[in-house]
């Protein structure tokens, strides 16, 4: 269990996130939705230990009760862009997290090899990112994130750069991969359909200052979720997002 207690993030002028607390359970996908500027990205970046200079933060992070500093190897982060390095091959990009963590090159390579086919990348390990389609690039980014074997994964709008068809395919595919690895996932998204289809739980944030205004658990298993029920849930979420909390 990952727990954030009383997180406040502020720029010199104003508070971006105020007194935010949340728990992430292992093996659960939690979606974080909210209007632009509500501080979703600040929460993610704080967790990843990469809050921009100029922002100050107070708050406590614990994992299974133990206090953690950030960046923490138990948490891996995937930025909104795939952030693949254009000068590295698919295999080298995928191994980046392991190598930065000090895993020897050969070991990292050996750990990635068996995952390549599940990620639809078998035979492409020596290609460079600009030779890949958008969906493939995203899969390399997911492989890079998942192979780090952290307990928690932060995804900042992972599908925003993809076209609609690729997006739908990738969502189902990602859920399958995440269920295999049983990590706790915190995913920022703007897409209510995406949130209702793949999340175990949806957190709704409101802006100025950023805080959580609703915490909705979706107990129905993903495959049993009917379109009607999802549509209702989406309506609820939509009205929450449109509501003026300030």
């Amino acid at each position, binding site marked *: 269990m990952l727990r954030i207690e009383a997180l406040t993030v502020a720029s010199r002028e104003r508070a971006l996130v105020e007194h935010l607390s949340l728990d992430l359970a292992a093996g659960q996908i939690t979606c974080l939705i909210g209007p632009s500027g509500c501080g979703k990205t600040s929460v993610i970046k704080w967790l990843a230990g990469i809050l921009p200079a100029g922002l100050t933060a107070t708050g406590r992070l614990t994992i299974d009760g133990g206090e953690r500093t950030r960046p923490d*190897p138990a948490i891996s982060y995937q930025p909104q862009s795939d952030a693949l390095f254009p*000068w590295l091959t698919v295999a080298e990009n995928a191994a980046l997290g392991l190598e930065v963590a000090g895993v020897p090159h050969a070991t990292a390579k050996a750990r990635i090899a068996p995952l390549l086919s599940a990620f639809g990348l078998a035979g492409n390990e020596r290609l460079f990112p600009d030779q890949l389609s958008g969906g493939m690039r995203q899969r390399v980014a997911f492989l890079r994130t998942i192979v780090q074997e952290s307990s928690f994964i932060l995804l900042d709008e992972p599908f925003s750069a993809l076209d609609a068809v690729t997006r739908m395919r990738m969502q189902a595919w990602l859920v399958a991969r995440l269920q295999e690895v049983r990590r706790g996932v915190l995913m920022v998204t703007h897409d209510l359909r995406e949130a209702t289809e793949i999340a175990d739980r949806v957190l709704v944030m409101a802006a100025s200052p950023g805080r959580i205004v609703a915490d909705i658990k979706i107990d129905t298993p993903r495959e049993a979720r009917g379109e009607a029920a999802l549509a209702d849930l989406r309506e609820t979420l939509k009205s929450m997002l449109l509501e003026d909390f300030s």
Partner: protein
Amino acid sequence: MQPLRRILPAILIALAILAVWELYCAWADVSPLILPAPSDVARALGTERAVISEHAASTLSVAALGFSTSVAFAFLISVALHFLPPLERGLMPLFVVSQTVPLIALAPLMILWFGFGLLPKMLLVILVTFFPMLVSLLSGYARASRDHLDLLASMGAGKATLFRRVRLPSARAAFFAGLRISATYAIVATIFAEYAGARRGIGIFILSAKNNFRADLVLAAVVVSATLTLLLLGAVRLVERFSDRRRGHHAAH
């Protein structure tokens, strides 16, 4: 033959200019002492080729030596400045001022202080080429993408790892751009240094040709210096091509 087609306009324009020049010399009856025709220059190049190539070899080796020392030096300094920002704030103004020193003032002083040997010429080449290299490298480091830096920082990378894995590779294009600029300066700076005093080199060849009123030889030296610059640029291009690990892959940009 795509490359040929690309340089064809340049070749045609150059040929046209040479033709006009040649015709002007023939028809306007200008003294070859004032304005030798291209054919005179070509002839001078042919008859003096042994002497000229000896001088050219000397110029090229001095320029290449000074240039590579400068590049190595610029790289070391750029790394130091990147990791020690106060050092950058302290040294950059000094480097900028160094670029305002007129070579015409400095070259004779260098000869006075360090004699006619290799050292004063190398120092001049370094003075001229170091700064563009340094600026290219520093701006290349600064060009690293925020996403790449953030990603690595979230993996726990420290400043040294960020530099090696993100900033340094990100600076590749800027480095080679700086290398091309510096390479063109290197030959000119060497010739200037030789002109101020040397035993061998295109610069001293120009000086003696001028003193003997041999405009054709001066122009021949210009042709040689342009060729040397192109040679150095070609060498830079080759290094760029062969150091690219994506060679053999079809690059999309």
